[in-house]
């Protein structure tokens, strides 16, 4: 699974962490803001906001283009961010880091550029845990190129059926397995290392959708032995508008660009062009430099805390949530209670639709997500049209979980 690090226990100072997030101190009417929709996007610490403002105030220019000192500073800031991301996920080289606008774009680059070599009958494997952004690009390839998609099912707890995977890998020539590293609905993670080893034995590449995993667990692409990995900055305490695609150098190097434009070319004449080296090949257009600076600051901010402390704190929040929610009559947690959960927890509640629950919680200052969370196949798997999801971050407290459970009890009676 994820690399576990050992540190001497040092309790996180949550009140001090909360003070670093300007948005968290506001009230919604009479209620304090309780932000439990972190799987959708996290809030940003002051240090991220300051780093971006500082960039615009001191170093803004178009990177990799100008021949003046200011442009050097912008280029430096952008490339420093790339190197920081590379060390953060233990990539071999910074050139393996492509800046995109989102996890979605990162996955689409793989589907559209790497996928260009696929032919009718080639197989891509997906699991029922996947977010739509890791389903639709492959369905598009199915329509365009006639590839097949093989689905890995799951049991009632959301655990993937390893026999299905074994069977798929054994019977078909699966070119790529694209897999969520942490479910955005269930908060459970597949046994990544085992799965990747199995896939590689069958000459199948593995793309990990780490959109959810990245803020909750350390990621080491070399230890995982993954081939591609995608995540977004905004779920990692960084700004919106920038995402990351990591790929093995030799794989990225063999791929054509997706967007044609500036930055991605080597030479252009009137009827011909050659494209640039990686990673610029995939970064057509002026890149989101200030956002890269913000992402850099977010990684610095998050990694000042030991991963073990982050994992312990968030796990304890979800354990409290499971305990408190289980006391509510008619409430069922998707996938059941689990000690292995991190990030998200979703549930259904008899008598009240998730939208009504989320609306009424919102009126009490509590932010949760309602709906299918861009994971319709998974909701179909659990025969639930929609659910309510709470998702935690480093700045959440036990008190907020208690407030959520109490508010649900208060909201329920008129619906039953």
């Amino acid at each position, binding site marked *: 699974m994820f690399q576990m690090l050992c540190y001497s226990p040092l309790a996180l100072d949550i009140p001090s962490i909360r003070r670093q997030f300007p948005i968290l101190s506001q009230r919604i009417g009479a209620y304090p803001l309780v932000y439990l929709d972190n799987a959708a996007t996290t809030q940003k610490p002051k240090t991220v906001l300051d780093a971006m403002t500082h960039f615009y105030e001191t170093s803004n220019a178009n990177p990799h283009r100008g021949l003046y000192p200011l442009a050097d500073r912008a280029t430096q800031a952008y490339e420093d961010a790339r190197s920081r991301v590379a060390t953060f996920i233990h990539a071999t080289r910074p050139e393996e880091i492509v800046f995109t606008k989102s996890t979605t774009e990162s996955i689409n680059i793989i589907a559209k550029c790497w996928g260009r070599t696929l032919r009718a009958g080639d197989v891509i494997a997906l699991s029922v845990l996947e977010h739509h952004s890791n389903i639709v690009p492959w369905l598009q390839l199915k329509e365009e190129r006639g590839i097949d998609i093989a689905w890995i099912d799951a049991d009632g707890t959301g655990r993937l059926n390893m026999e299905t995977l074994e069977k798929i890998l054994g019977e078909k020539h699966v070119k790529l397995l694209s897999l969520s590293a942490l479910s955005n609905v269930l908060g459970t993670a597949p046994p990544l290392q085992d799965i990747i080893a199995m896939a590689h034995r069958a000459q199948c590449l593995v793309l990990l959708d780490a959109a959810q995993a990245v803020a909750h667990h350390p990621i080491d692409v070399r230890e995982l032995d993954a081939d591609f990995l995608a995540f977004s900055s905004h779920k990692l305490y960084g700004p919106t508008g920038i995402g990351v695609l990591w790929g093995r150098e030799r794989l990225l190097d063999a791929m054509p660009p997706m967007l044609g434009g500036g930055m991605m070319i080597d030479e252009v004449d009137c009827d011909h062009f050659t494209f640039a080296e990686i990673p610029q090949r995939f970064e057509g257009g002026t890149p989101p430099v200030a956002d890269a600076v913000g992402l850099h600051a977010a990684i610095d901010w998050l990694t000042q805390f030991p991963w073990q402390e982050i994992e312990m704190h968030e796990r304890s929040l979800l354990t409290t949530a499971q305990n408190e929610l289980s006391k509510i009559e008619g409430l069922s947690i998707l996938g059941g209670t689990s000690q292995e959960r991190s990030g998200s927890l979703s549930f259904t509640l008899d008598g009240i*639709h998730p939208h009504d629950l989320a*609306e009424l919680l919102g009126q009490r200052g509590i932010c949760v997500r309602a709906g*299918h969370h861009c994971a319709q196949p998974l909701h179909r798997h659990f025969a639930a049209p929609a659910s309510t999801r709470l998702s935690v971050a480093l700045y959440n407290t036990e008190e907020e979980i208690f407030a959520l459970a109490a508010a649900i009890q208060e909201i329920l009676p008129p*619906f039953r």
Partner: protein
Amino acid sequence: MDLYAENILDHFRHPHRKAALTRHSVELQEKNPSCGDSLTLMLRMKKNTIEDVGWEGEGCAISQASMSILADALIGKTIEAAQALSPKDILAMLGVEVGPRRLKCALLSLHALRNALRKFQNLPPTPWREVLPNA
């Protein structure tokens, strides 16, 4: 007025005309793709008039109450009168303040009605943006 007023919750808990019609002239399902709420509306027409209404569905209190209230209001209406119903009319029937966030929930019933009437007249369905100009 509170979105979850007593009349809304009443219709949600005890929806009116929520049953399939054994005989109907047209049946049409509409969904709100952003949340998965769905309504299947059945109309029995007598010449130009809606003689009976039945529906099935799943979703939030707002979408279901809206359908329940509209179903009652449709009985005896001519096609023209039903077609003329506007989003404003539906919101007036609900009698609560519906913010932009829940407008689609409140108007799913109208969307289903309009397309059911169009289907009955062999016309192609209209998209959401016809009901919700800014959606």
